[in-house]
């Protein structure tokens, strides 16, 4: 299986006028297509920064990032937007659905920025909502849905663009253990049934145990 992501000596330094903070220190990481990995670490360890870099929300200060064998370490802001839109799907701890839009509109949003035709987007979004078991709630606003339901909608949004990689940042962090398990099961199903590449950032060992591989980050380094 070919490697989808290769990080070579990625570092991230935050500079303020007085001091430097090294969030990531020479990270080397390889991730294959169809893999499901967990990134585990204490808060402040740099795991979120790593996920942001993998998901093109952020860029390393130095080092190289190869995505499908292409060097993507020095992209412009527009190119980053484009690659996020095409290749990644995010699932966040606090769901991050747009409160003014209903579930369907939220799921359609990535396709809107792809300039996809509206009716086609609707069809795609509806089928994804069906897949996550939310088709009956397509016209509900996020504040009318429970946390678990919101996270399902968010997962549908992450999947709608058929991305190469799904990045989940503490996806069960805001959910009670029951619904958390359901959401986790949904992600596992996606991995097993569709061979999706999934990166989960978590500090919960129970979750990392489900993944093929666990990367532990401490103080900006992989241990």
């Amino acid at each position, binding site marked *: 299986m070919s490697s989808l992501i290769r990080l070579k000596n990625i570092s991230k330094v935050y500079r303020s006028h007085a001091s430097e903070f090294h969030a990531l220190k020479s990270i080397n990481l390889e991730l294959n297509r169809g893999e499901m990995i967990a990134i585990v670490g204490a808060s402040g360890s740099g795991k979120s920064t790593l996920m942001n870099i993998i*998901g093109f929300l952020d860029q390393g200060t130095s080092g190289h990032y190869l995505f499908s064998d292409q060097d993507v370490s020095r992209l412009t802001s527009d190119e980053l937007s484009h690659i996020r839109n095409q290749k990644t799907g995010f699932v966040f701890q606090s769901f991050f659905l747009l409160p003014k839009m209903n579930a369907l509109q939220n799921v359609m949003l990535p396709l809107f920025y792809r300039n996809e035709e509206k009716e086609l987007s609707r069809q795609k979004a509806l089928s994804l909502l069906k897949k996550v078991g939310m088709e009956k709630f397509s016209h509900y606003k996020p504040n009318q849905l429970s946390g678990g339901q919101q996270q399902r909608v968010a997962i549908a949004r992450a999947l709608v663009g058929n991305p190469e990689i799904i990045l989940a940042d503490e996806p069960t962090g805001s959910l009670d253990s029951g619904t958390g398990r359901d959401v986790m099961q949904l992600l596992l199903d996606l991995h097993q049934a569709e061979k999706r590449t999934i990166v989960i950032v978590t500090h919960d060992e129970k979750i990392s145990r489900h993944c093929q591989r666990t990367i532990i980050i401490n103080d900006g380094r992989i241990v």
Partner: protein
Amino acid sequence: MRWTAYFQEGWQNLLSAKLRSILALTGILVGTASVVAMISGGEMATNEALKQFKTLGTDLLAITISESSDKLFQNATQKSLSVEQAKAISDSDHSILEVAPYIQLYNPIQFNGHALDGAIVGVTESFARITHIEMAEGRFISDLDHYEPFCVIGDGLYQQIKQHTLMNPVGQQIQVGSAIFTIAGVAKYFPENSFVDGNVNNAVILPIEAAFLASQYAVINNIVLKLSENASSDRVEVHVENYLRHIFSGKQYAFRSAKELVKRMGKQNEIFTVFLGLIGGVSLLVGGIGVMNIMLVSVVERRREMGIRMAVGATRRDIRLLFLVEAVILAMAGGLLGVLLGIVIAYGVALYWHWEFTIFLWPPLVGFTVSVATGVFFGFYPAHQASRLNPVVALRAD
């Protein structure tokens, strides 16, 4: 399709922050209204000033003859132009169609023993035709009157007479200086204009020859000429001045041509209107700053939303458009309502000053265009700010 989506979304966002949107909109509304009202008012004032030329036409040329200050010419050969000499001016040039010389005198006027406040104007028959005097009753002065003691009174004088007697003044007698004249007609109200010197409304209008008899100081000091339609008033001015210099010396001539006056008034009013527009523009500017202020608050409040949009692939341009479209919607709505309010204000102004109310096309167009431009201009900075957000930082915002 994408644009309609942007506009739908912008509209929804504005609706979800109603009070704020209304405040921003009010700023633009007031600004646009003031631009439209001010410019419309200026235009109406211009129209009002030019109204006299609608009845008089623009082919008039007025000449005022005065004594030269130069002592050398003071013992002039002839004191006044004679009526015949004045009338002959029209035969001297083909583009002079008609001539109306007139005399102004300030003899005391009495009616039935009551002193009236007014002046004397000695005219020829052509005077009424050229200056469009219309009769309320009776007839105007005729050239056949010659020295006959008939006169016409102006509307103002008629109003004065009405306070003393309820009798119809036509046929009554009026005393001018030491002479008695019979009132042959009453003129209708004569709107002020810049061609005829003196107040025709408050005048006893006499046959010009009779006026010569009424006072030893009678001098033809004013002439109104009616020119053919395409005559050059400059050329006629030169011609008339030469003609008059042949008759007598030691005089100064001042010409007022309708075309010249229209041009000058037009220029003055243009400056006036531009200034009014600028004053309106200042309030529109203030409105624009209001829009910017509110948009900036909105950008800060919606940072997380921008972060989410960026995470799913919105480019900087997308984010910028999102805010710009909101600013444009605000400006268009404010501009539209402002135009309506501005027209209403202009209507009120017209009502108050008894002007003729007209809706001009260009002040609303200018007002609307400028308000939308203001929206885009002041929306641009907040929109730009939003587009420069770092997605990671934006997502972390609360």
